[in-house]
């Protein structure tokens, strides 16, 4: 596995349409019906980010909207990269 994180914060992203997301006290559970894989969101803030993805022109804007600070951004970028790698989120085509 490459240590280089491949995730473009400045592109528009969305939760994959085949993903079901269920809030839990610790964050959320995600299930992808296409890959049949399960993932977790480990806190409420990352859940807020993921929920905001579809409404913002970039992942960076979604992070800002969810209250993620500049200092926290690298950690959220890593979390989003992991979600992208498992196809839970995908790049959105802007119309």
């Amino acid at each position: 596995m490459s240590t280089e994180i491949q995730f473009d914060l400045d592109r528009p992203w969305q939760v994959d349409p085949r993903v079901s997301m269920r809030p839990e006290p610790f964050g959320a559970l995600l299930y992808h019906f296409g890959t049949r894989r399960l993932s977790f969101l480990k806190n409420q803030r990352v859940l807020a980010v993921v929920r905001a993805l579809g409404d913002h022109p970039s992942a960076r804007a979604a992070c800002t909207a969810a209250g993620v600070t500049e200092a926290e951004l690298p950690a959220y970028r890593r979390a989003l990269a992991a979600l992208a790698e498992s196809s839970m989120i995908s790049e959105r085509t802007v119309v």
Partner: protein
Amino acid sequence: MTLTSDAGARSAPGRLTDLFQLGLDAPICLTWELTYACNLSCVHCLSSSGRRDPAELTTDECKQVIDTLERMQVFYVNIGGGEPTVRPDFWELVDYATAHHVGVKFSTNGVKITPAVAARLAASDYVDVQISLDGATAEVNDAVRGAGSYATAMRAMSNLSEAGFRGFKLSVVMTRQNIPQLNAFKSIADRFGAQLRLTRLRPSGRGADVWHDLHPTAEQQRELYEWLVAHGEQVLTGDSFFHLSAYGSALPGLNLCGAGRVVCLIDPVGDVYACPFAIHENFLAGNVRLAGGFESVWRTSSLFASLRAPDTGGACRSCGFYDSCRGGCMAAKFFTGLPLDGPDPECVQGYGEQALAAVSAAAPKPSVDHSHRKVPVTIGRRRPPDRDCDENPLAGFAAQ
């Protein structure tokens, strides 16, 4: 047990596993046995299936359960039985579930997986299929699952493969007889574009009667563990083998008993048990037909509340491996007569064997048994005499 590693759950760092340990607002997935009816009589059937129960949930009652699961956002159900596809309303219920955002994975011996059915299944993202096979050869499989069952399963997998269904599951219960066939099972799965799923033999249902002859030896457990480590996430285990984690590093999955915490069982008559391997009144949490339905059982059952309480570890607490194996499988202990707060009967440190040797009372029996009757019903099946008035018991046998 948990089924969550089938969904590819990653081992989470301590805190999240602890939260799972305390239970979730709804199961991640649950096992739903739709009928006790089965065309086979596998010797190790965990639900002692065979004959339909007259009190099984009706089509409408099943749909109400699905409505509840949708409301609770249960991602998918593992449908089993018995042989679920022999229910006349099986496909109607599958369609109803997927239309209501409840994914379906169903286990079958393959009897109804015709080319037409396979094509239909291949077209859906929301339905997954698991074909049961317990031997990589007809000889090993049919000794456990019955004559012809190997051919049935192979035909079903061939149909799924030809229909373009990729990644369906080939599900194997590991036994003393088939552990030498691990690589052969992998080859079969690869040949059909399937994913191999290995699960643990439990002494549940009729499995209690054969467990001593069928469960893997200590050497075989080690072999299985090494094999699983080598194959990693390519092979699913339903988190079956977390007791093997005491050999060293943890296997992929949550590695915790999910009974009542992240999984449970709804049986054909609507009874809710803590886990599919624990069909016994001691693990009965309620019934979906009662007021409040499944949601109320999951959220308010006192049995489930006790299962979600932190483990004390009991007799295992002083063992240095307790953090990895967590005392093993509740059902395996219960149906071999061992105390629930002690070692698993297949404890890799050998404490289970010592404990088994000390068991004096008979192990508990399952509360329900729908096995086919031992003496086959012959009414209406009597063959006519070969010739009129020829009732000699040796009629039809050629002289040797």
